[in-house]
């Protein structure tokens, strides 16, 4: 489904990695592993089309990403380091905006539910600047509870700054997504128990 061939990434002067090949099938959960600075985030950004590879290509459902950009963006979700949260808007407003931009026809009620699910029900109408680091993270993650119909999830360290219960709940949700034929590609430094057999892709082997 998501296919990566001969991918190479240049960051500034440095060739981070080269010759990366990776295929993610429906229902798979793939963890990108490797030490800091090996280019995990860069790889995720290449996978979701935010950056252009130095060499090689990313294909989605057999088509090169450049050719199928609109469809791919409809069918992929990327959550990066930054929470994509504006400080002057409330979590609810932020979430609604993010969902609308992604082309998800979602009403306010579902957004409220998603926020409750991630444990932000009471804070949903506070300006985002008063939230703690973990709470800010959760606003971004709340999008996952709106995106069950988006097949590919690309997640950069989704478990950082979450408490144990939230990690548990999120892991269950990722499992459910894979069980329904979704795909998850993520990086994490935490050992999270998944029901889905997790495939680990060690990026260090392709590092230059």
């Amino acid at each position, binding site marked *: 489904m998501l296919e990566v061939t001969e991918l190479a990434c240049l960051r500034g002067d440095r060739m981070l990695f080269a010759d990366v090949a990776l295929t993610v099938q429906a229902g798979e959960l793939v963890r990108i592993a490797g030490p800091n600075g090996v280019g995990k985030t860069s790889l995720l950004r290449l996978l979701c089309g935010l950056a252009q590879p130095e060499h090689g290509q990313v294909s989605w459902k057999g088509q090169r990403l450049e050719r199928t950009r609109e469809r791919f*963006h409809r069918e992929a979700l990327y959550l990066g380091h930054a929470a994509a*949260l*504006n*400080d*002057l*808007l409330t979590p609810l407003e932020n979430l609604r905006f*993010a969902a609308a*931009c992604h082309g998800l026809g979602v009403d306010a009620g579902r957004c409220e539910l998603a926020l409750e699910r991630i444990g932000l029900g009471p804070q949903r109408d506070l300006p985002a600047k008063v939230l703690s680091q973990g709470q800010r993270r959760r606003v971004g993650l709340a999008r996952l509870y709106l995106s069950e119909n988006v097949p590919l999830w690309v997640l950069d360290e989704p478990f950082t700054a979450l408490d144990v219960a939230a990690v548990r709940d999120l892991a269950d949700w990722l499992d459910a997504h894979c069980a329904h034929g979704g795909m998850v590609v993520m990086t994490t430094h935490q050992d999270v128990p998944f029901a889905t057999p997790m495939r680990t892709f060690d990026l260090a082997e392709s590092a230059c």
Partner: protein
Amino acid sequence: MLSVFLEVLRRDLLLAWRNRADVLVTLAFFTIVACLFPFGVGAEPNLLRTIAPGVLWVAALLATLLSLHRLFAQDHTDGVLEQLLLSPEPPVLWVLAKVLAHWLTTAVPLIVAAPALALLFDMTQSATMVLVLSLLLGTPILSLLGGVGAALTLGLRGGGMLLALLVLPLFVPILIFGAGAVDADLAGTGAAAHLMLLGGGSLAALALAPWASAAALRIAVE
């Protein structure tokens, strides 16, 4: 298609409202710059009438320039820009929405304030009318072209000065035709040609600038 345009427009207007001090600061800057000139060149009414169109246009230009960095900077730092670029809709749409929001929150207050400043410079009523019209037709180009500059300099050290260096030369024709319109009206030759050129320029900028901005934003987050 339109939903992302409307969502971004609504959000940016809401943000401008929550952050309305920024809008007021731009407006105050415009007023103060315009008011500095009489102190510099003397308060002789005939002189003031002659320089008024140029002064007000230069002030509007500088005020727009100062507000340009707001266009994408916040979204760039908090990651919203990435998410917008990952939207399935074409980037031109939401770029246009952001530029429109910028125009509505920066240029429109200036245009509303301009007649009051025109009074300070003892401009005639018809010249004031033409000034407002020329601002109305010309400031969209400032926002559109400025958007390209803001996108190109996004996240760079010393980006503000660089932005000025990039866009001010490009603003010169707008200044010429904008101030020229008022001059032409004062000279009795009619401002229609200038205004039409400004309008045409706005349309051309509307057609081209969002593409350049979108391309520049794509490479800025890479």
